[in-house]
């Protein structure tokens, strides 16, 4: 599958503008007119996108109370539609686009981490310049470069799941460097949490790693 311009745009947007604008872009470009629902029927949707679909969707979309995703995040978490009403399955391009988006968000987290550690000192040296920190950030970069390369090859199916897990692991590595700053609800860790939630909600039905009979 050739790399689509929309995917690149989602990655750029996630890195430069943030997760919610990127998710809005992904929805408008690759599932226009339909709420992007995961295989279980749940959705994590920018409220702006929900407004656009309000007329046909509001009643069928009870919100799930999510303690960390208040209105200020610009996101709504939706339960599966009542009565089992079926949305059309998400296009494969949307699912792949989500990996691109999460890569961009992970790169944004890396940017935030570099900036944060550059501004903090220990024993007269910026934390960023400590050898263990440099080594860890270099490992993060290797992950990002590998994911970027794999995405360029047009992954499908199981490869998408593996890439999502790789992004989560990479985010966790960055978050450990951020310490408690990455654990606050108004800091860079919140988008990382939303990113994990997106990977979870939009995992394919076969993604629970069950034994093949």
């Amino acid at each position: 599958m050739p790399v689509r311009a929309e995917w690149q745009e989602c990655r750029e947007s996630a890195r430069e503008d943030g997760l919610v604008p990127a998710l809005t872009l992904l929805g408008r470009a690759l599932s226009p007119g339909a709420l992007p629902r995961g295989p279980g029927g749940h959705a994590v949707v920018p409220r702006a996108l929900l407004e656009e679909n309000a007329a046909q969707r509001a009643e069928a979309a009870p919100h799930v109370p999510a303690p960390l995703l208040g209105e200020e995040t610009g996101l709504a978490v939706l339960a599966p539609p009542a009565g089992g009403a079926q949305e059309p399955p998400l296009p494969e391009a949307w699912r792949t686009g989500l990996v691109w988006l999460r890569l961009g968000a992970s790169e944004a987290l890396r940017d935030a981490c570099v900036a944060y550690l550059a501004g903090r000192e220990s024993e007269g040296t910026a934390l960023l310049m400590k050898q263990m920190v440099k080594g860890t950030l270099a490992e993060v970069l290797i992950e990002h470069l590998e994911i970027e390369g794999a995405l360029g090859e047009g992954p499908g199916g199981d490869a998408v799941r593996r890439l999502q897990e790789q992004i989560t692991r990479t985010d966790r590595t960055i978050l450990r460097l951020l310490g408690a700053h990455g654990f606050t609800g108004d800091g860079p860790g919140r988008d990382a949490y939303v990113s994990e939630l997106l990977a979870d909600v939009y995992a394919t039905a076969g993604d629970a790693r069950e034994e093949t009979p």
Partner: protein
Amino acid sequence: MIALPEPLTALRAQVAAWSGELRAGALDVDRDPEAIRDRLGLPAVRFLAGLGDGEPAAPGHETLERVVVAEELARGDAGTMLASPGPSMSGVLLDVLGGPEQRAWFYGRLAERPTWTCFALTEPERGSAIGEMGATLTPQEDGSYLLHGTKRYVGNATRAGIAAVFARVAGTERLGVTAVLVDTADPGFRAEPLPMLGLRGARFSALTLDAVRVPADRVLGAHLSPTRRGMWSIVQVFNRLRPSVAAIALGIARAAHEYVGEERGTLRGVERERFDALGQRIDAARVLTYRAAMAVDAKPAAGHLASAAKARAAELAEHVTLEALTFFGPAARLEHPLLDKLARDARGVEFMEGSGTVQKLNLFQGLHSGKVGRP
């Protein structure tokens, strides 16, 4: 498996029996950290609130005792455990640095009613780097001090009655760090809750200390020799606390692992193997944690195993809680909110009592000096 002293086996069974009711309220305390106030009657919370400076269950095994209790309570709910009133980390500090009168004052206050305490070390600019602490104690003519500074990520600070605060005595050298007890009702003490992604029950807070008056008799360690007052004691406090933090991580990992076992029932094939492998890793980390606690109990300065246990258990808690989610289908985080909470809580252990990086640097020192890793 390492055999526990008999009184600790009994204590473990007693505490383990409370895990169900802790778990039942876990999501409520996560949603609203003040929900702990409705749970002060729970046996587990009363147990934590009532911990005194009396005889330990197994004398000579105090760190191991805290490890056994922390794992079982965190297996119930780490958030509620950390939300509970009681001596908590300040109690360990008092064990090392408190004089008899200070202990009497501290535990006397705690005996009056359920009282929270907090342990204020971390600062906004310098984290937990003790050598670079900004909070200062300025000596006054009457022998008291005025305390100034800001602290961050201090658990329970908004509801604490007593705060243990680390600060530098103005005009002393870089490592001249002292711990003092502060009555939080005193003027100049202000705490604001911080929004957190996990371990929300702990009510991590930001603290402002603006000319808080500290009487001379609230300075910890004043009865000890000058060499034992400062870093020497503080390192011992960390050595004693780190195995307990490792145990909290173990408890979180176990909660997630057991949840998979309970909700998925009989697992087969590859899933069974994955599940068993996670259980084996938890057991291995527990052995490391027990060894770390026993090393500290035998010799309070022997903290390298404690660093190893803390670093390993924190990593493992993240790993197991993420893996646990993969045993369920799409939207497992929404369909199994307890697992989502455990995956969030697990992240918080990483920065308690020193990040993984801090532990690894400490371990390297042990390796380099030959204090660890040799027969």
